């Protein structure tokens, strides 16, 4: 028994990263972000609006939330669709009540299926592309023409129904193939939110010029805390409030602005027994409004470019 010599060879062992995508830096050794005067914590709220087809192909890997039962898996299909029919409107109301801005990451197929919803969301905030649907996860096994088609179809559908230029991308389940960043840059995308390795935006290299990566926390996501970790809705509320308080303290004690990035799923947090916790979080944040800069991803991307 032994392994090939390549298992003891370390070809990418060098200063910095083991790839060329971004420079190695530590958050605290960068210059402080210049949020507007007096604001120590930027707040980015993103809502992911998703379609899970009843007949998934699921080649490669399944996004969390995909069908799990034998066909036709009506229970998961409809539970996800609940978010688009009911849950999203509860989130919109909560945003309205606390006068908060948000971005909406939308699957291209949602635009085709529910143009009303996309028009409604486009009036309320910034539209981000979220891939074609939740079964179209990007990975190295996807045929290049297919991946290109998913990106083009998504951007076309969203631009058409939202009447907004779409410059941002969040992959379904934050999935990417090795070539996804190149395809995004070529398609006119300026920033993406798939890499959760930081707490501030940073520049990301592609063969077709740089993108900005905006880290959209997985660990603070409703679906992750409630759906994967099976923590209660109250625990979710506590954890987000603890995170906000911690980041505010850190920003104020170090003088370095911080970013709280919250990703929401209408099919998770939009349930009637959970939405109250989102309202509790929003009320907590609104009470610290004098310290908060409620921002949108296009602004964060601009900030990173200036840096």
């Amino acid at each position, binding site marked *: *028994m*032994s*392994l*090939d010599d*390549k*298992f*003891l060879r*370390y070809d*990418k*062992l*060098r*200063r*910095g*990263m*083991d*790839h060329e995508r971004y420079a*190695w*830096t*530590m*958050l*605290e*050794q960068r210059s402080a972000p210049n949020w507007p005067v007096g604001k120590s914590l930027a707040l980015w709220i993103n809502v992911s609006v998703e379609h899970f087809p009843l007949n998934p192909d699921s080649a*490669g*890997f399944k996004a969390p939330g995909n069908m799990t039962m034998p066909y036709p898996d009506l229970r998961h299909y409809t539970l996800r669709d609940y978010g688009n029919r009911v849950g999203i409107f509860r989130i919109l109301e909560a945003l309205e009540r606390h006068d908060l801005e948000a971005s909406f990451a939308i699957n291209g197929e949602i635009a085709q299926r529910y143009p009303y919803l996309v028009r409604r969301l486009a009036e309320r905030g910034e539209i981000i592309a979220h891939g074609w649907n939740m079964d179209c996860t990007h*990975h*190295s*096994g996807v045929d290049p023409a297919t991946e290109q088609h998913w990106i083009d179809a998504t951007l076309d559908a969203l631009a058409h129904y939202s009447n907004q230029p779409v410059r941002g991308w969040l*992959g379904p*389940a*934050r*999935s*990417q*193939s*090795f070539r996804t960043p190149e395809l995004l840059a070529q398609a006119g995308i300026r920033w993406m939110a*798939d*890499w*959760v*390795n*930081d*707490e501030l935006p940073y520049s990301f290299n592609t063969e077709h010029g740089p993108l900005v990566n905006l*880290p959209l926390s*997985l*660990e*603070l996501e409703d679906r992750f805390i409630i759906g*994967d*970790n*099976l*923590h209660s809705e109250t*625990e979710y509320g*506590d*954890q*987000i409030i*603890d*995170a*906000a*308080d*911690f*980041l505010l303290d*850190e920003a104020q004690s170090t003088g370095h602005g911080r970013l*709280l990035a919250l990703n929401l799923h209408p099919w998770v947090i939009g349930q009637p027994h959970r939405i109250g916790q989102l309202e509790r979080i929003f009320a907590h944040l609104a009470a610290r409004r004098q310290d908060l800069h409620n921002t949108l991803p296009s602004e964060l991307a601009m900030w990173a470019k200036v840096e």
Partner: protein
Amino acid sequence: MEQERIETVTERKADPGLYDYLPWDQRPVIRWPNNARVAIWVAPNIEFYELDPPLNPSRKPWPRPHPDVLGYATRDYGNRVGHMRMMRLLDQFGLRGSVSLSTAMLTHHPEIIDLVLERNWELFSHGIYNTRYTYGLNEDQEREMIVDAMQRIRDYAGQHCDGYLAPALSHSEHTIDLFAEAGGTYTCDLFHDDQPTPVKTRSGKRFVSVPYSLELNDTIVYVVNRIEPRRYGDMIIRAFDRLYAEGERSGTVMCIPLHAYQVGHPHRLAALQRALDHVCGHDQVWLATGREIAHHYLEHYHDEAVAMMARIAQEEA
């Protein structure tokens, strides 16, 4: 076919053969320096996971097809964001870390190691990368990997590498023997006790297990057991209270293993801070490193414990 299967089974040991039975109530009485009841050590794991490593036949490095952007970025967060945050917290309590180190970090991100060395922390080996497993390596290959990692620590930090936590907890039957032969003095890979214990090596070298902990390891807590942050704080406090009470009779060890990519998130630090407040608010604690615990035990209790185990085994025979 049948014959082959039997041979495979008999090749595998039913018992690792690393230690003999030593009941909790039949041991040398341990006294830590300054009459402390509990030796507390904090073990930050400082790790590098590769984006596209060679695929080990026994274990996949990533759950998703490469590039597993989510898995990779989740861990990279620890290096970019988490370590400095975690260090600031440990500094508040005067806690020195004993670092379980992917030694590739010495080359990839020496800035982090410099912060560690400024704080006079201990470095011990956690392999080269946490995406290179022991599985499948032959004895020479594993020795090469172990010696290589120890040498990297000596070259960069001028420290002798005393401890080993196998990369990603991947072992062979020879792991501990090889590490002891290369000059190591303690292992973190065994979870059978709340005190240091002698470990048998084929070379007969004096060698100990220092209790690390899986139950209080933040990655096991958060990723495997999916525990709420505040409950993790409660668990640390409960474990400490019990080990502190029992430590009046004979000194105990409590380890808090940490990963900046887990505990370094903003919703998790307050709970750890509260737990450390509780632990460090007690007088009779020894804030130690893994090496200090191993050496103290080797010097004062190892040989007595070996003799007691031999006596017990003889009496039972």
